[in-house]
Structure formats: structure tokens, C-alpha cells
């Protein structure tokens, strides 16, 4: 009798059940999408924060002082120590290599340009260099680590004629202020350190590079006469905001604490691992970038958490409202059942069974809709997937059932308490 009552209720009141089901589906969908977005937002914003550029720099251990004023390096070029270019792919071999978004070596060289024989700094670097470490192939360079560098024909607009030089070419980029000073255009040939080189584009960075020449690393090494030399390496890594553990000195840690520190992607522990893989190096965080991203990240995460709570609250309320309405309309039915001798327990059981069925159906439909919604949000805002943990499914289903029950409970209690005589007379 019990299953038949429930079944008939669904068959004959299909429209009302559909309405309640839609409310649950929508509520669950919003809740799922918001939870998915909120759990993934930290990772997504962390990646966006990489547009501030590298947060770590690797320099030779025994380096002499940089003497640089206004973008002009006054240090004798062959002075000081260098890193070995051949060691760089090892950066991909560190424990947190998945968190290393990219790296760019830099080799500044002071050169004479043209017949005027003026001193200009030429920086050798990777633009988009294919490298391999072990079985892994990857590309890296300033196009990844310095996303605000723009190459144009000198007018600020991108154009196919003015492009990034290839990493194995003899082409260079001129900083925009230097290009104006020298009156050079892309495609022109320029004499740099006694070599005829082609200007492939005008570089705009809003920093010291606007007064410099940027060239492929191999070319800078040839000019300097030091093959394989690199002055410093900028590394862009996804890091975890620092906490009390992050800033401790690894030398004072017990082995367990050390393992925990080493296996957390703090900027400090990634710097430590970079020092380990690159011989005679000193790796340090660039505090301007590294110190601020933690605050920004935690603010955005906190905000999304609070908004998610608001969304969960609103969808819980919507589901309960729909359930309460659906049950309130059926007082006559309750009166009839009770007049025929059904107890409060039996009547409540029917309603709860119906609510359970609705919650399960709405939960499954809502979870799929919410997953689609989250994916859509991820694709349109961040150009990447927002992945949904499968673990979320039972959690969401449980929440849906709980909220539906909680929303129905008050209405069921009132419906059961209602005097069947009044209900059947249609008063109430």
C-alpha cells in the first residue's frame, strides 16, 4: 500500500511534483556550481597572479654587486660569476616541477651600437625556447614569465610583420625608447658589437628594457664570448601563501617538520630546491611579487567562500520554500488519510518518502547541471576547466536530502496536526 500511495501521488500530481523537483534541481545546481568554483578559485587566481611575473630569481653564489642605474649596467661585462645554461632544464627536475610555470635566463651584455659607439645594454634571453628534461619536453621563456612584454611595429599594435625573434636566430628586439632614439624600424639592419643584426620588432615593457636591446641568449653569449653563460634566471612558480612554517629556517627543523616544509609549495621551499638542483647558485624570492600574492589570494578566496555561503543559504531556502508550499496544498489529502485511520507516523512517512525521492532526483539532476554551469564559468572566465571532485557528489546529495527534509519538516508537522474535519470541510 505504502509504495502505491507514493507512486500514485507522483502519477497524479505530476505538475506539482515537477515544480518542487525543479526548485530542488535549481537549488542543488547553484550550490554545486558555487562549491566547485569556490574550491577551485584559489588555483585559478594563483595562475592569474603569475601575470605579475617571476616570483623567484636564481643568481650565481659568488656574484659581484650589480651597478645599474636607469637601465644601464655599469658593471664590467665579464666581471663576476655565471650560471651554466646546461643546468637550467634541471629546474624541471625539482620536487615541485609541476608548480614551475616557466623560467627565463638573462644575460646582460654592454655593447656598442652603430658608428656612434654608444654604450647600450643588450640582454640575452629565451623567448619561447623548446627544452627537454628527461622524457619531458617543454617550452619556456619571457613570453611565459613576462606576459606584459609586448612586441609591435613601434605603434603599440601587434602585427604579423613585427614578431618575436626565433631563439636560434640572429634577430633582436629594440626597446621602444631606444628605437626612437636610434630612429630604427622593424626590418632595419643594425650594427651591434660589429655584427649586422636585423630588428624583428619593437619591445614595450614599461621598465628598463625600453632602453635596451633584447636578443636570443645564444647571440648574447657569442657577443660576450662566453658560451653557456647565464647571469640570472627568473622563475615563475605557483606557490602557497606563507604561514608560520614557511618562514622557519630549514636548518633548525626536526626531520618530520623538514619533510612537511620541503613538500609544501612555499616560495621559500621552492627557492631551497632550486638551490639544490643548480650548482653554485643562490635562489631568492622576489619579495615585491611573492609577498603580495598571498594577501591578494587569501582575500579573493575568503570573498568567494562568503559568497558561496550566501548561495548555499539562498538555495536551501528556495528548496524549503518549494517543499513547504507543496505540502501545504495537500491538507485535504492528509485529512482524508487521517479520517480513514492513518496515524501521524504513517502520514509523515509518506511525505518524507516523497521528499526523499524528490531530493534524490533533484540532487542528481542538479549536480549534473551544476557541473555544467561550473565548467561554463571556468571556460568563459578563466579559459580553463573547473574540475569537480567526484567526492562532491555524495556530499551534495546528502545536503540536498537534508535540506529537503528540513524544509518539509515544519510543513509536514503542521499538515499532520491539522484537524481532519476542518480539512475535509475545506476550511483552513
Amino acid at each position, binding site marked *: 500500500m505504502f509504495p502505491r500511495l507514493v507512486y500514485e501521488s507522483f502519477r497524479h500530481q505530476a505538475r506539482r511534483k515537477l515544480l518542487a523537483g525543479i*526548485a530542488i534541481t*535549481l*537549488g542543488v545546481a*547553484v550550490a554545486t556550481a*558555487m562549491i566547485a*568554483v569556490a574550491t577551485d578559485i584559489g588555483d*585559478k*587566481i594563483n595562475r*592569474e*597572479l603569475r*601575470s605579475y*611575473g617571476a616570483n*623567484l*630569481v636564481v643568481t650565481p653564489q659568488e656574484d659581484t*654587486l*650589480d*651597478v*645599474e*642605474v*636607469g637601465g644601464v649596467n*655599469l658593471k664590467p661585462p665579464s666581471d663576476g660569476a655565471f650560471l651554466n645554461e646546461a643546468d637550467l632544464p634541471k629546474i624541471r627536475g625539482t620536487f615541485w616541477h609541476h608548480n614551475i610555470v616557466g623560467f627565463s635566463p638573462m644575460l646582460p651584455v654592454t655593447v656598442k651600437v652603430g658608428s656612434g659607439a654608444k654604450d647600450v645594454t643588450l640582454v640575452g634571453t629565451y623567448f619561447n625556447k623548446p627544452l627537454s628534461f628527461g622524457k619531458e619536453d617543454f617550452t619556456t621563456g619571457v613570453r611565459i614569465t*613576462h*606576459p*606584459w612584454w609586448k612586441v609591435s611595429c613601434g605603434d603599440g599594435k601587434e602585427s604579423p610583420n613585427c614578431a618575436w625573434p626565433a631563439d636560434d636566430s640572429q634577430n633582436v628586439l629594440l626597446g621602444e625608447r631606444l628605437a626612437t632614439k636610434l630612429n630604427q624600424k622593424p626590418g632595419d639592419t643594425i650594427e651591434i658589437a660589429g655584427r649586422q643584426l636585423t630588428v624583428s620588432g619593437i619591445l614595450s615593457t*614599461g*621598465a628598463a628594457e*625600453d632602453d635596451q636591446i633584447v636578443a636570443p641568449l645564444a647571440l648574447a653569449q657569442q657577443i660576450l664570448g662566453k658560451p653557456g653563460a647565464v647571469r640570472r634566471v627568473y622563475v615563475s612558480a605557483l606557490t602557497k601563501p606563507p604561514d608560520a612554517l614557511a618562514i622557519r629556517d630549514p636548518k633548525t627543523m626536526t626531520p618530520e617538520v623538514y619533510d612537511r616544509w620541503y613538500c609544501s609549495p612555499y616560495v621559500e621551499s621552492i627557492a631551497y630546491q632550486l638551490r639544490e638542483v643548480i650548482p653554485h647558485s643562490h635562489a631568492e*624570492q*622576489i*619579495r*615585491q*611579487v611573492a609577498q*603580495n600574492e598571498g*594577501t*591578494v589570494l587569501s*582575500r*579573493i578566496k*575568503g*570573498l*568567494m567562500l*562568503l*559568497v*558561496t555561503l*550566501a*548561495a548555499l*543559504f*539562498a*538555495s536551501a*531556502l*528556495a528548496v524549503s*520554500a518549494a517543499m*513547504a*508550499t507543496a505540502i*501545504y*496544498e495537500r491538507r485535504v489529502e492528509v485529512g482524508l488519510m487521517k479520517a480513514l485511520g492513518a496515524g501521524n507516523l504513517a502520514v509523515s512517512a509518506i511525505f518524507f518518502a516523497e521528499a526523499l525521492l524528490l531530493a534524490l532526483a533533484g540532487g542528481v539532476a542538479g549536480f549534473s547541471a551544476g557541473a555544467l554551469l561550473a565548467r561554463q*564559468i571556468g571556460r*568563459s*572566465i*578563466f579559459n580553463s576547466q573547473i574540475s569537480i571532485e567526484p567526492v562532491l557528489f555524495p556530499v551534495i546529495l546528502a545536503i540536498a536530502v537534508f535540506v529537503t527534509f528540513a524544509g518539509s519538516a515544519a510543513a509536514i508537522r503542521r499538515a499532520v496536526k491539522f484537524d481532519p474535519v476542518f480539512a475535509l470541510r*475545506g476550511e483552513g
Partner: protein
Amino acid sequence: MSTIGTLHTPKQVADRRAQSPHISMFARMLLRAAVLRRRRAASALLAMIVAAAVATAMMNLYVDVQAKLRTEFRNYGANVVIVAKEGQSLPADALAKIESVVGAKTMAVPFSYAVARTKDGQSVVVVGTDFTRARQLNHWWKVSHWPDAPNEALIGMRAAIVVSPNRQPFELTFQGKAIQLAPAGMLQTGAGEDSRIYLDQSEFQNWTGIAPSTIEVAANGSAAEVETSIRQLAQLLPAADIRPVRQIMEGEANVLNKTRATLYASATLVVLTSALCVLATLIGWVFDRRRDFAIMKALGASERLINGFFAAEAAALGVVGAILGFFIGIGVAAWIGRVNFHAPVVPRFSVFPYVLAGSVAVALISAILPIELLRRVQPAIILRGE
């Protein structure tokens, strides 16, 4: 009728009614409907209030969070750099002029550079600056102790190894003039600053005679506002180069846009869900009163009157809910601001018209929908309870 109280003969009732202020039948019906079905009316009103509060909080946050995040982004330091043309210094009143354009609250820090020599002939860059300002602008500088006595210098980590490895006083020469300096503290940034020595601007100028050549400015506001500041500065200081710091500006724009888009999507979802909640509750409420509807119709009320009655009722609910919800929502937004940004969100009353219009619209839709359904049914059928 509980209001009758001690006056209950028909004449007394009639007198009292004649004396009491005249309320139209329409208004009386509205009031009675709310009073007699308190519980259902209260639950409908509650839904309305919650929806309006959530919508208000979301809109307030959406507007205010961008300003809040911008202040956070200012911790990344200067977004505009003013540099003197080659070989020159900036005019002496440049700092005052800049502050007149961008406002005194904006941080502007002057820097002047010179290459000095240590006793053993090594070159080192010495920078003159205003320490109080630099400290406020560059939050990320890790400084063991800021200089506070005359002839004290702030020494970069790497410069310290060269000039003062044991933190002893040292001597620097610039164009034959020597100066004795004591290290106050160490500076660590992981960038170029580590190789430099920082001095107070007046001491620096007494020693080298070089005036500031660079001023770093942290301009507040949106990208468009910063652009305007840059244009104004360029007019004011024609002798200088005004450069936006692209690294900072583009990074900020990027992160802010993504956050705003996410917040917008979430706020829309939340507002839609709460509208749905109101819709579900109100439809139930109106549907529930189909007997009132049928009686009114049976007594000869025109369709216009009935529609007007239910619409007025829904609108009143929407207005009351919007007003109460608005204030609660402002409180919620302020709380979120305090918890997350440690600064309250400023209430924005410009949001109110939207919340009010939205609430009334949702209320009207949820009243009209069931009425449209009921209109097709004969009153007799409803009254028979079928």
C-alpha cells in the same frame, strides 16, 4: 471579531465605525488579508526580505569589492614612474606638483641615484630617498631596522657583503668627496635594491649635490583614473617622462577582471536563486487563497478589481520586503567587508532602486501567474473545494 471588545451592540458598532477614520474597502481587505493569515503572510514576507537582503549584499559587494581589491593591489607598489629626461633632475617642486594632481593620500616617493666608490675601489649604487615615504610605498621591503639617526644608511643584503661585512661604519667617495656612514639595518627584496645603499635624501644631496631624478607614484583608482592622472602629470611636468609600470598595471587588471567576472557570475546565481525562493513562496500563498478569489468573483467583483487587489497586495509585500531586506543586506555586506578586508563596505544607497524594482517585479510575477491559472476556473468549482 476580536476588535469589537466592550462595544458590541449593533448601534455602538455602527457609531464606532462612523467615527473611526475612513478606510476604503480596498485598503481594509488588504490589511485584513495580511492580519488574518499572519503565518502565511509572514513566511512570504520573510522570503521577500531574505531575497532582498541577499541581492543588496551581493550588489554592494560587487561594487565595493573592486575598490577594496585595488587597495590590496597597491601593496605591489608604484604603478607610475616619473623619470627626468637624461642627465637632468626633476624640478624641486615636482613632488608638491604631483601631490596636487593625484592627491595627498597617494604615495609618491622620490629617488636619486649616484655611483660611489668604496675604500677598496669597488663601485656601488647609492640612492637618496625619503624613508618614511619609501616605507609606506614598498611594503614588501624586508628591513631589519629603518635608519633614524643622521648618517645612518639602509644597506642592501648584497651590498652589505662588500661595504660592511661586520656591520662596521664605512666610507664612500663620490667625485672626491668622502662620507662616513653607519649601517642602520639590512634591506632584502630579492631584486635590484639588494645591491644598493639607501641614504636620506637631504644627506645624499649635501654629499653629492644630486637632486631626485625619479619619483615613484602609487596612483589609486581604476585603470581609467590612473590614465587620467598620467595625462595630468604629463601636462604638469613637461620636462619629465611619465611611464606607467606595465608589470603592475596589467597584472592588476588581469586579476581584477577575473575576480570581478567570477563575483558577477556568483552574484547573479545567488540573486536568481533567491528570486526563485520568493516565487515559490508567493505562488503558494496566492494559490492558497483561491477561495477568497472565488468568493470575490461570486460576489461580482470585476476581473480588473481582483487583479488589482492581488497585485496591490504583492506590491505592498515587495516594497516592505525590499526596505527591510535592504538594511539587513547592507549590514551583511558590511560584515563581509570587515571579516574579509578588515574595512567596512560603504553602504551604497544607489543600489536601493534596483532592489526595490526587482522585489516588486518578482512579487507581481508570482501574484499574476497563479491568478492567470485561476481565472479560467469557475468560482463554483473552487468553492466546492475541488
